[in-house]
């Protein structure tokens, strides 16, 4: 009887929205960052294998679909399903490369995890990259998703990546339309891939 009651309690606990079982955002971000750094510092991992490993780590912690929606803003509603899908694919690639590029340049630096601020469904994890000549504040913003927290923005020295892309993409979409924006995005992603090929080749 008691056993059954306990099981019932467990089921209720698991289904409660935003239950206390969610791991702290700070730990989740720390885990991802450390894993990314581990791959970056591993000289044995090169080329596609390295990139795939990094990609998997980043995509598990970032919500690129949510970021896409917020970046496109008013143009998200105007876009049709196939445009949305193309945008998410291309933008995810761009964000991933951009974020990894930043972490890669900090490979030799010490990253300090200062703390977390949780405000209902949102959280901020503050980190500082201590380089020899300056301290660079880098904040991760996360949204709660069930028992998990996903990153939806990265703020470096007060500059939010999503806001920045939103402004410039908005200006491009107003001028060249959504298809024009997608075309420029595609060219950018291709150019980045070519760069990667040159670096690892």
């Amino acid at each position, binding site marked *: 009887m008691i056993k059954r009651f306990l099981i019932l309690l467990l089921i209720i606990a698991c289904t409660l929205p935003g239950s206390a079982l969610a791991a702290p955002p700070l730990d989740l971000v720390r885990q991802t960052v450390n894993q990314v750094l581990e791959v970056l510092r591993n000289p044995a991992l090169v080329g596609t294998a390295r990139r795939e490993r990094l990609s998997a780590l980043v995509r598990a912690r970032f919500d690129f679909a949510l970021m896409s*929606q917020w970046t496109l803003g008013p143009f998200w509603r105007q876009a049709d399903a196939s445009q949305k899908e193309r945008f998410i694919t291309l933008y995810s690639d761009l964000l991933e490369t951009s974020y990894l590029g930043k972490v890669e340049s900090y490979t030799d630096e010490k990253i300090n995890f200062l703390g977390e601020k949780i405000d209902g469904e949102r959280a901020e994890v503050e980190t500082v990259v201590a380089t020899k000549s300056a301290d660079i504040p880098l904040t991760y913003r996360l949204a709660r998703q069930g028992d998990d927290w996903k990153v939806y923005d990265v703020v470096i020295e007060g500059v939010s990546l999503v806001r920045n892309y939103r402004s*410039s993409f908005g200006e491009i979409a107003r001028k060249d339309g959504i298809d024009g924006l997608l075309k420029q995005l595609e060219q950018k992603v291709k150019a980045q891939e070519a760069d990667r090929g040159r670096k690892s080749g």
Partner: protein
Amino acid sequence: MRVRLFGLIALVILSQGTMAMAQTDDAAASGPDPFAGEELEVHIADPLQPVNRGIFWVNDKLYFYLLKPLARGYRIVPEPVRISVGNVFDNLLFPVRFVGNLLQLKAQRAGIEAGRFLLNSTLGLAGLFDPAQSLAKLQPQPEDFGQTFGNYGIGHGFYLVIPFFGPSSLRDGVGRVGDIFLDPLTYTGLTTLEQAGVKGFDRMNGLSLDKDTYEQIKHDALDPYLFIRDAYVQHRQAQVEE
């Protein structure tokens, strides 16, 4: 053509209201709004964009064909020495930060800057080292005239790209002129050209310690001009709010 352009601008301004409504719709589709209560668009007027883009282009060439190669060559100087050179320049700009804090009536922050200056000028051997950095209570409190104006509610006016110096605005450009009066370099008796040389050296020293920030922005942005413009506005906003 001109009339059509103005019509378009008016339309964009008018549609701001509807855009704000569209944002709430977006939020409904994705659960809680992660950006609730936040201004999402980065605003700065840019009426001089064609001219600004021209200067941006010149600065870009200046970077890749002059400053960067110089900085690269200069890297034969050991890194600790270059860090110390940067520290000295930074320490000397103390009056700009101190007065900025005072003008904004941020007495505590002004005190911290004074403490940093005293400690780094003595124990730090005339600013060569930054012992204050290791004390949590003595972290830098950067301020300048542009931020002071911002603190008193003065907006950017419009965006400006300044030759050699890069992104700025009407407000921050005027602030920069004010900052010159608080820069000890102005009172050294050096000619304008010599002073420019010293500033150029400071810049090159900083670049030699930088990890290709500009290259990375060009690598990541669809339109580096827009990306840097919006990043500048956000960065300054964050500094003003501090």
